[in-house]
């Protein structure tokens, strides 16, 4: 709201996913592949393997054309897109880390020069000198990863930087080291996978087999270490954040599943290629690469998702509001917006007051500045689909806007603004509804749960919904009449009598037997702690 919002109907976030998703797959290859080039060159020279050396020459060309062109430009592309989509975060990061980036640029400059000289020097330089360029290339490329990794991990785990604002504290943050290992392993694995691609088109089958075996020797061990480093990495992420990927947040959960399973598939496919190295087909090599791409991007998406609702954890929300007031925040905090209103605080809005006539238009603007960082009206994470799927009527929508920060393990920022602005946002969201929801007809308890409770509550025995509800069905159903009196932050949903009864009935069928017992008044004898939980 400090900056204008680039209004992309299908979701600007998808552009970041596209640009960054392709970039990481090439840039990690650019690092691991560099080491692969020099070590393979050395191996080929030591064993006098001219065929391997000739292949390596053509592989170098492939390498340079891919990394120097696509890799470099897509890297610039990430800059372009984050500046367009998260200007506030980009500005923060630039001012915090510009010297890190400047250092990375020095390495990048060396890297590009060395890559070109290595490529053009194949037929010109003596072997020792040629390998020297290869080493410089690899060291510079690796150094640029080591630098950029500090900034990327900072966004997820800024650690005590939040209190002290010191460069190195932010840089060597809690996930820095595991992430360095994790990404190094990815680089090595990709070096082998890309080698399979150019190997697969070789006519000399013995050569092909040699390269496939050699490539697999890079990929297979690296893939084996990935779960280890991944586990270490996850352990360094605060558990409450990573919990999002364990169910409550649909996207993070799906991608976490995909990351692990595609990793396994990559592993199996690489072993398969190794079984019949002389017969590796280009299509098969490309499939391996694609699956690896899927695994890698899934990991990146999980990393980005679990820090939601923040771009910089605990510092800046995705919608560019600061988590806490501080000097220079420009008034862009939840508290300030709650006091003065969005329309007053935001720079880039057209409406400055809500009137009965402009409610929907104002709501559209509030949506743009507060929600559109992650949602669209009816495409990616489309609100239209979300409310329709859950059959929310206008009153439900309105009530739910109070509970945003509780939903899905707290992955959304709270609504910030005045009551009138919230009404306007609700009016806009409701204007997206194209069906006539009739929630009163939903008397299937499970559906009532899914449509109204599942955003915040989980179908797990240790959830408040199960532990906190009165065991007496009648009392329980009555208590659901006024949710805010049960827990002040709950949205003030109005369920019908039938809905309440069926919901309670369903909840009771979901409880484990132990909880039934634990919830019986008679069972609450001193000394027998309720067993609920896991």
């Amino acid at each position, binding site marked *: 709201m*400090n*900056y*204008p*919002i*680039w*209004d*992309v109907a299908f979701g600007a976030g998808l*552009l970041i996913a596209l*640009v960054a998703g392709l970039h990481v797959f090439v840039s990690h290859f650019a690092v691991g592949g560099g080491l692969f080039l020099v070590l393979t060159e050395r191996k080929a020279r030591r064993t006098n393997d001219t065929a391997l050396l000739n292949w390596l020459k053509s592989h170098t060309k492939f390498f340079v*054309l891919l990394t120097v*062109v*696509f890799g*470099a*430009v*897509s890297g*610039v*592309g990430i800059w*372009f897109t984050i500046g*367009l989509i998260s*200007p*506030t975060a*980009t*500005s*923060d990061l*630039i*001012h*915090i880390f*510009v*010297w*890190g*980036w*400047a*250092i990375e*640029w*020095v*390495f990048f*400059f*060396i890297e*590009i*020069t060395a890559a*070109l*000289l290595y490529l*053009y*020097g194949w037929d*010109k330089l003596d072997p020792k*000198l040629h390998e*020297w*360029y290869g080493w*410089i290339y690899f060291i510079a490329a690796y150094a640029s990863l080591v630098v950029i990794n500090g900034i990327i991990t900072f966004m997820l785990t800024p650690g005590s930087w939040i209190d002290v*604002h*010191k*460069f*190195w504290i932010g840089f060597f943050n809690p996930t820095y080291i595991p992430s360095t290992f994790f990404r190094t392993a990815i680089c090595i694995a990709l070096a082998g996978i890309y080698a399979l691609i150019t190997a697969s088109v070789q006519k000399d089958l013995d050569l092909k087999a040699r390269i496939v075996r050699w490539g697999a020797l890079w990929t297979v061990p690296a893939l084996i270490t990935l779960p280890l480093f991944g586990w270490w990495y996850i352990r360094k992420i605060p558990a409450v954040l990573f919990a999002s990927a364990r169910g409550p947040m649909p996207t993070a959960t799906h991608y976490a599943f995909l990351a692990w399973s595609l990793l396994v598939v990559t592993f199996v496919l690489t072993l398969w290629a190794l079984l019949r190295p002389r017969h590796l087909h280009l299509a098969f090599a490309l499939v391996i690469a694609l699956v690896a791409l899927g695994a890698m991007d899934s990991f990146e998406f999980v990393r980005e998702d679990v820090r939601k609702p923040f771009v910089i954890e605990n510092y800046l929300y995705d919608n560019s509001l600061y988590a806490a007031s501080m*000097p*220079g925040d*420009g008034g862009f905090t939840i508290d300030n917006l709650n006091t003065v209103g969005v329309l007053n605080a935001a*720079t*880039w809005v*057209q409406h400055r007051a809500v009137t009965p006539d402009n409610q929907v238009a104002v709501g559209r603007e509030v949506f*743009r500045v507060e929600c559109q960082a992650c949602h669209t009206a009816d495409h990616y994470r489309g609100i239209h689909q979300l409310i329709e799927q859950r059959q929310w009527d206008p009153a439900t929508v309105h009530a739910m806007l109070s509970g945003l920060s509780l939903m899905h393990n707290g992955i959304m920022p709270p609504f910030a603004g005045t009551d009138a602005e919230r009404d306007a946002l609700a009016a806009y969201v409701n204007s997206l509804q194209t069906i006539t929801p009739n929630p009163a007809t939903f008397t299937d308890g499970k559906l009532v749960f899914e449509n109204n409770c599942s955003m915040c509550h989980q179908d797990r025995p240790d959830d408040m919904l199960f532990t906190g509800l009165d065991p007496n069905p009648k009392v329980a159903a009555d208590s659901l009449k006024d949710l805010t009196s049960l827990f002040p932050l709950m949205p003030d949903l109005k369920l019908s009598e039938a809905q309440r009864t069926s919901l309670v009935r369903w909840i009771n069928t979901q409880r484990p037997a132990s909880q039934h017992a634990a919830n019986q008044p008679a069972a609450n004898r001193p000394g027998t702690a309720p067993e609920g939980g896991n």
Partner: protein
Amino acid sequence: MINPSMVPTLDPNPLPAPYWVFKLLLLVTFFLHMLAMNFMMGGAFMALAARFGSKSSQYRNRIFIDVAKKIPTLLAATITLGIAPLLFVQVVYGQYFYTSTILIAWPWFFVLILLIAAYYGFYFAAYKGKRRPGAAGFVLLASLALVLFIGFIYSNNVTLMQVPSHWAAKYFANPSGWNLNLSEPTLIPRYLHFVTAAIAVGGILLVLLALARWKHDREYARHLFRFGGKAFMYATMAQFLVGMWFLVSLPRDLRMLFMGDNTLATVLFSAGLLGTVAAIFLMSDALRKDSIRVAAYGVTGLTAFIILTMVIMRDILRDAYLEPYFHPHQFPVHTQWSIFPLFLLLFLGGVVLWLVMLKRYGLFTSTKPTEL
């Protein structure tokens, strides 16, 4: 309608070094970016002029291939040297820069796609120029068109970032980023000013190639020299017209900066003009006397100097445009002493290593022209 409230506020994080450090780095790296860009774009113009315009059937394809082979490397330099000013412009002018890019978001985003396409096109021409000069010529033409368009998008962005008063109308008319800055009167002359300079520098590229071939292939080198020298002269003469057009398109108070209102700007402007006239005479003299060294060292040095004056003037102009909003002393500064010296060290070390790399490759000592 001036609505200063449209300028976003600074973020809470202080500048991690004094303002002038970033300004200096911005100017130095942008100057290098411009040098590389001029050689790259100018080289493409020259390659095409040779391929499609040269009367000498003997050298037509030879010049084309000779130059086309250099372009991918020059584009790599343009991009690599563009990243640094991209970083530093955000440090200092982020509030303006992010906003204008968002207003022209789609064209800005397409820069990436155009750039990748142009890049591969240039590589195609470099690798296939010999075997398929016809196809390579057209691909190179297409790539040149793409980089010309990229430069145009940059000019749109840079001119738009300087005029916050125009932002609101543009954004609210089209918040989805389908804008350019075509209504800006200085846009076209400013952009043509860059393109014309690139053509002139393309001429210099030929002169430098001629220098490298002077010993071994005098006849061809002389042809290159003539071709490039003339291109430089004609383009630079045309630059007087384009430059004047640019100057008169500026709002009066800004134009007067260069005519007395701002001493530095006036001095630079005069020096630039004098340098340009001198460069034309020097080149014409060198051509007449067949003295490649005067052209290769003298004119090149002079031209680099002129570009430097232009880069500084461009900066003065931007700050004058932003005068109502932008006040460097308002930046809170908190120098990061724990990392800033490390950058300086690595930067110097990087330059040294870079030179060593070029030297060991034989770029400085070769008796034979080195192929890059």
